[in-house]
């Protein structure tokens, strides 16, 4: 156990973790919630196929997502010119891809739990589409919160995929999960445990806030 705990790098890794997770969550929600709402409220050809793909995506192994991400972003890949591989953006995009099916699937389930005629009943009030969507989002907010919790859990706990596309480069793409993995493989269990407690502390704090939101939402 040669290495020692250093507050500076840990703070930096923690902030990067928060940035990567936060950005991936925002991206997954911005894309996934509208898709989930459209899938839940519209009937169109191949809808069943899209829903099946989403369901399959919810169970897709993250390491496979990482592999596909690495192939796409590699210098020789279709998006190689963007030079994203081994940058935080590669990690954000991969984390988004992991969280997206969860967000779409849980949004779809939340919309599906509404009364079958909900949309028709709101339309008959003569509300414009933006107001109807606002009411719908308000109506399914508890389901959306579950989507946030599931997506965040998926992103925060993921290590294999972000390691593949991020490379765990010190000062650039190292996040809590990849750092824990690295220190464990080097036998530096004390530092790995310290980092793990920071990660668990983060998850617990977020879970507490989200649970409080969920419970106060149910009480309303």
């Amino acid at each position, binding site marked *: 156990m040669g290495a020692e705990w250093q507050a500076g790098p840990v703070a930096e890794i923690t902030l990067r973790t928060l940035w990567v997770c936060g950005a991936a969550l925002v991206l997954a929600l911005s894309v996934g919630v509208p898709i989930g709402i459209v899938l839940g409220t519209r009937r169109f050809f191949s809808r069943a196929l899209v829903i099946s793909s989403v369901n399959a995506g919810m169970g897709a192994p993250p390491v496979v997502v990482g592999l596909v991400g690495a192939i796409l972003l590699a210098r020789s890949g279709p998006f190689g010119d963007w030079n994203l591989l081994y940058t935080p953006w590669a990690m954000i995009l991969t984390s988004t891809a992991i969280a997206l099916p969860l967000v779409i699937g849980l949004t779809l389930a939340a919309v599906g739990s*509404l*009364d079958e*005629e*909900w949309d*028709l*009943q*709101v*339309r*008959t*009030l*003569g*509300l*414009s589409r*933006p*107001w109807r969507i*606002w*009411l719908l989002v*308000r*109506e399914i907010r508890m389901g959306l919160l579950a989507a946030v919790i599931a997506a965040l859990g998926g992103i925060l706990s993921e290590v294999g995929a972000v390691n593949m596309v991020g490379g765990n480069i010190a000062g650039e793409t190292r996040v809590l999960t990849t750092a824990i993995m690295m220190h464990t493989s080097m036998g530096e269990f004390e530092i790995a445990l310290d980092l793990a407690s920071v990660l668990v502390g983060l998850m617990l704090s977020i879970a507490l806030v989200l649970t409080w939101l969920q419970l106060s939402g149910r009480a*309303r």
Partner: protein
Amino acid sequence: MSVALSARSLVCTRGRGRRRFELRVDALDLNAGEVLVLLGPNGAGKSTLLRALAGLDDGVRRGAITGGEGPVTLVFQRPTALSGTVEGNVRAALLGKGVPEPERSERVRRALLRFDIEPLADHDARTLSGGELRRLALARAFVLDPEVLLLDEPFDDLDAEGQRRLSLDLQEAIAETGVAVAMVTHDLRRALLLADRIAVLSNGRLAQHGARDDVLLHPDTPEIARIVGMINVAEGRVVRRTDDVTWIEIEAGFEVPTATPLETGERAWVGIRPEHLKLDVGRGDGEPIGKASVESLVSDGLASVVTLRVDERRFTTHLLSGRGLARRLRAGDRVALAVHPDQVHARPLR
């Protein structure tokens, strides 16, 4: 009377293959300030028509719906409560409509008061009973000051007292606002209290429509007769005519008089509303038409429904419960029947 909403050459289809259903309405007008009641058996297309009139895409549609310059709103058979308070639900109907405060609050308050749910304003809308939820849905509709209000089974699942109170409140609201109403209901009694006009749907077609009494007393076909409550329907042949009365034999030796002029020997069907079939107790109440045996007598406390039998044919009449004959009558009794010729509807059989 100006037309509030008008449907022309309307075609709505839903389902595919053997489950395909098509609704066709050539012409139907809903006039300002009137109540049009849509009657018909299950699956006739009443709710489909209501949704089409509301402008909700319900299957492929051709034809045109015009009018409805002001708000057109539909209250569903099973209204949905939005999450939040009762007041919030009513307020939601005004979102983005540019209604400024304090007018918005005043309109919401008036709508809540109109349907007697103001005391529930702060309650969670999802905890309301079925009757309260229906009142909330009506308040949410009336807060829009609609030009056209479409109601799908507004009295469904309510107890007798709930139905009575809601129909009174609804009647008052319609009279005060002058809103044009189209209503689907199976409750013929409530329908008759509210209706100015009746439209009868059958098998996806508009079978007959017109002024309430016209449709009730002069249905075009035996099927329509049964739908509008003229349940004593029989076929027969015209056997004789006097100046004012045509006699139709519907069973051997059992003749019914009608004021409708028909040719002797012509085949015809007759329809008699239960309230127009009299039990002749020697008061000279109509023309005697023969004797029948009482098969059953069922009372709901207010009215007794008496089923009578003439050979193989059944007739039904209504008596006020607990009075005179209704108290004495027993199954198996023989009674004399009488009708007024002008209360017997008759049409040639085609």
